[in-house]
Each structure stands twice: as C-alpha cells, then as structure tokens.
C-alpha cells in the first residue's frame, strides 16, 4: 500500500512537472467554470498568478462576448452534451490581466476526478502566427494592388510555359481575359516564329541555364486576341515559389513609341527627299530648258507639216512631260507652305470639276457637288491641286466613264469633303500602299498624286482617309479644321 502510495506520489510529481514545464497554458475548471488549476504557461499568457485566479470564474480570461456567454456554454453542454469545443479545439480570444486581448488556440478535454466532472483547457498562443498571417495578408494585398494597378503587363509562367498570373494591364494589352489565358501556354500571346519556338527556348534554358532574355530584356512582338500584333519591351525575371521555378515577364507597350519613331523617320526621310529633289530639279530643269529652247528654235526652221516638224513637236511635248514630273516631285518633296485665305469649299470644288471637264479624255465623267460648309482658312491653290488629284484618280478608276459625287458638310466642327466614285474600289492588298510615294497601278503615273494630296492636306492640319465600302467604289474623305 505504501509502495502504491509512493508510486502514485511519484506519478503525480511527474505529471505536475510536465504541466508546470509546458510552454502552453493549461487551465482546469470545474462544472461551474471555477478555475482549479492554472499552470505557469497560463500565468505567462494571461499575466495572472495561479493564486489570483484559483476559484474564480474562468470567464475573467475572456473578452466580450465570450466573457458573458461562457456560463451559458457550460450549462448548455452539461444539459445537452452537445459538444461545441470539447474534444475539438478552435481559435478564440483571450484577455490578459491588463485588459489586452490576444489570439489563442484552445482545446478542451473532459475528465472525471473523484466523481466530479472537470474540464482541462490547453491554450496555445497564436499572437505570433496571427501577426505573421496579418503581415503576409497585408503584404500580399500590397503586392496584389501593385500588380493589379501596374501600367505594364505582368505575366507569370511556370517551367512548362503555362500562364499562372496575368494582370489587368496584360489584359488591356492582349485583349484576352485572365480566365481565357490562365493555364494556357504563353506562346498564344506571340506571333510566329516566337509562337512556335518559345517551348524550345524554355526547354533550352532549363537544360543549359544559358540566359537569353532572363535578367535582361528586349523588344519583341505580341499578338492580341484579334490576331493583330504590336511591339513591346519584355523583361523576364526568374523566381522560386514553393520550390518551383517561375518566370515573371514585365511587358511594356511600345506601340506609341514605335509609331512616333516611325513618324520621325518618315519626316527625316521626307526632309532629305525635299533637299534632294530641290537639287535634282535644278540640275534637270536647266538642261531641259536648254534642250527645249534649242529644239524649239530648230523646229521653227523646218518646213511646217513635214514629218521632221512633227517629230520636233513630239520632242518638245516629251520634254514638257519630264518637266511636269519634276514639278510633281518638287510639289511632293517640297510642298510650299500654305498661304491661307478664307475659302468657300463648295465653289472651289465645282471650279476644279470644271477644269477636269475640259479634258476630252474625261468628258464622260459626271461630277456632282452637293452640300456646303462655312468657309475655312486654307490655301486655295494647294486645295485645288488636291481636289484635282482626287477627282482624276476617281475618273481613272472608272476608266473615264461614270459619276463622281462630292459632298461637302460640317462634321464635328470640321469641314468634311467626300469624293465618292463608283469604280471597282481598291483591293485590300493595295489599300495600305496608296499613300506610299511612287506606288502606282496606272501604266502612266508617277504615284505621287495621293501622297502629295496627303502632304498638302496635312500641311493644313487636316486628314485624308480612303474607304472602300462593301457596295464597291472608293470614297476619299478630306477633313479640314475649322478656323
């Protein structure tokens, strides 16, 4: 018996030391909620000493509303035996002696000692974990906000090229929604040849570790969901997430920069062409003048109505054609600065149409001018050249027979002049080249008519646009700013 007692005593001592040395808090209460045991772990958690809390209701360790409701939980359990926390465990809030609260994980076990039911609570402090989680959540929210609000596209892919993240800016760039691309191979956003080669690039990098784009960046081409392509700067970084390698691409749209560069290049090229044309024109026109003058003088000495006299006349007309070409080139390459006057557009179009009617080759063309607009500030001489070019083009497109309708109106405060012919229209493959100098589909033509019209209209800060409606024909729309 004594041995048994001593065994029991040493058991109790062992348990006591376990309880005392536990890092977690251990609190034992009776059926009424009164604290019967409160280990040093609990003392550290709550700031009370065991002596201060023994015999007191455990609800002093709880903030509202648990503080008020705990007696009810306990009596309900004792009545119904419906376990809400016993044998399970959950995250709850604790209240320290100083009134501050903290998160803790509570698991409650039930035991019977000397015929009385007791409840043992094990309390694990969650302050650090909750803080960490909160910090992580805040950090994630911050990063998410950065990524979501970024102006540049951000795309994360895995080692197989599958898209894992795709921010709103990327959606604006490519037109696809995140749902449409998530899990898809990133090559869907690339035109050929990148489209076909990207898997190879990736495999090559993973195998050899040779960085071609990672860590640097370069200009590449993207492909939108409508199939169109655009220039972009891509920089790729590599990260490891949960032990997996990921690649983050940052995509900066270069469309406007490239367009601006192109415009600057075009302007520089036009300026060079202008200088060249001026020199060339002088060098050509001077000898042309010499040859023309001399051949004209010689022509006057030939008996009229002879073949020789006719040939001389032909020579003079060829020289005049050459001179016209030089004039056209100069007009395009070095257009005169507009000398603006208040111009009534409709009468100017009508007068230009009269000029066209004088050409016997075009007398089967009907030109109707409709509508009117308030006068605009423009150079009537230059506009007449533009209108004549456009009407001649229309007349040629209809092979010298048909109707050109010119409508003049005010649209959004601008003077809009539409030249509509009922010719065959312009094939799509040609349409993008029609403003390119020296491009022509006519057997005889310099290919300078439309480019010159464009330059002259742009010199007036206006626009020129060509439309080919489904019904056939071509409409050229000139828009000139109001005064």
């Amino acid at each position, binding site marked *: 018996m004594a041995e048994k007692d001593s065994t029991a005593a040493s058991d109790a001592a062992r348990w006591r030391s376990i309880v005392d040395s536990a890092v977690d808090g251990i609190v034992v209460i009776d059926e009424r909620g009164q604290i019967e045991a409160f280990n040093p772990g609990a003392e550290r958690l709550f700031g009370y000493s065991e002596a201060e809390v023994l015999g007191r209701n455990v609800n002093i360790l709880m903030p509202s509303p648990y503080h008020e409701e705990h007696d009810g939980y306990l009596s309900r359990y004792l009545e119904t035996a419906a376990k809400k926390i016993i044998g399970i465990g959950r995250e709850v809030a604790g209240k320290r002696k100083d009134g501050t609260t903290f998160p803790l994980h509570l698991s409650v076990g039930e035991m019977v000692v000397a015929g009385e039911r007791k409840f043992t609570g094990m309390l694990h402090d969650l302050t650090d974990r909750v803080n960490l989680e909160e910090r992580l959540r805040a950090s994630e929210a911050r990063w998410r906000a950065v990524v979501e609000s970024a102006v540049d596209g951000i795309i994360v892919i895995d080692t197989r090229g599958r898209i894992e993240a795709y921010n709103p800016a990327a959606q604006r760039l490519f037109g696809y929604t995140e749902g449409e691309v998530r899990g898809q191979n990133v090559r869907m956003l690339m035109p050929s040849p990148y489209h076909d080669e990207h898997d190879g690039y990736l495999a090559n990098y993973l195998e050899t570790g040779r960085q071609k784009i990672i860590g640097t960046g370069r200009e590449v081409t993207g492909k939108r969901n409508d199939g169109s392509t655009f220039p972009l700067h891509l920089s790729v970084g590599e990260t490891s997430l949960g032990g997996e390698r990921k690649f983050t691409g940052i995509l900066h749209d270069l469309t406007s920069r490239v367009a601006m560069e192109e415009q600057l290049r075009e302007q520089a090229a036009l300026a060079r062409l202008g200088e060249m044309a*001026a020199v060339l*024109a*002088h060098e050509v*026109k*001077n*000898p*042309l*003048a*010499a*040859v*023309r*003058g*001399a051949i*004209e*003088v010689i022509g*006057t000495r030939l008996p009229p109505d002879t073949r020789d006299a006719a040939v001389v006349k032909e020579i003079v007309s060829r*020289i005049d054609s050459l*001179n016209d070409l030089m004039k056209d080139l*100069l007009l395009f390459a*070095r257009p*005169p600065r507009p000398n603006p006057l208040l111009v009534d557009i409709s009468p100017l179009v009508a007068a230009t149409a009269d000029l066209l009617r004088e050409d016997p080759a075009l007398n089967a063309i009907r030109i109707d001018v409709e509508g009117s607009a308030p006068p605009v500030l423009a150079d009537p001489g230059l506009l007449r050249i533009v209108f004549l070019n456009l009407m001649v083009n229309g007349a040629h497109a209809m092979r010298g027979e048909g109707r050109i309708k010119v409508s003049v109106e005010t649209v959004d405060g601008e003077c809009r002049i539409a030249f509509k012919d009922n010719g065959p229209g312009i094939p799509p493959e040609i349409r993008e080249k029609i403003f390119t100098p020296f491009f022509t589909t006519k057997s005889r033509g310099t290919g300078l008519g439309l480019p010159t019209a464009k330059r002259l209209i742009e010199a007036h800060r206006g626009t020129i646009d060509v439309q080919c409606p489904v019904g056939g024909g071509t409409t050229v729309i000139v828009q000139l700013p109001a005064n």
Partner: protein
Amino acid sequence: MNTAARCLRVLVVDDEPLIRWSIAETLGAAGHQVAEAEDAASALRAIKDEPGPDLVLLDFRLPDSNDLGLLATIREMAPDTTVIMMTAFGTPDVTAGALKLGASRVLNKPFNMHDLQDIVRAF
C-alpha cells in the same frame, strides 16, 4: 519673221550656251540686238558699256553668282534697265525675292520661246 515695233538691246546672261543660243536666235529673228554673257563678271562689263542694254535676261544661278546679289547690283548700276529673271529654282521664295529687288518678272525654266517673244514684244 516678225519685225519688232522697236529694236531692243537685249543682254542674255546664262552659263548654258544652248539657252543663250536659243534666246539670241529667237529674239534676233524678231529684230532685236542680242548680246550674251556667260557669267556675272562679263554681265557687269556688258552693262557698263555704252549704250547699256534695255533688257537683261538674267539666270539666277551663275558660276560666279548664286543669289539675288547680282540682280541688286544691276538694278543699282542701271535702274532704267528692265531685268527678267530666269530660274530653274521656281520656288515662291526666289520669285518673291526677285520681284522685291525690282525684277519685272520671273520666268521658270524651261519656258516656251514663243512666250518669251510675246513678253519682249509687249515692251
């Protein structure tokens, strides 16, 4: 050939011999007295000679003159002499500049010999 209402002393200044020849033949046939100069220096000598020309047909670009300075000099030396500029640089700037300095008109090269005849006849 037409006989001119009045016989004019005309000086053609151009470094291109074919142009000088064409103009001399055309205006000579019309009864005018045509002298030729191939550069600015010889043009100025010809203008100093007595009697000076009634009309100077002056090219804009010469081996020893490349601007409107020669025109200004001629206008100063012989204010009563009519000057017609000839130029293959038919830019509005050149034309406006020449007219401002007192050229009576500007002919863009190449031009029609008939037209030249008409212009001279109108004197």
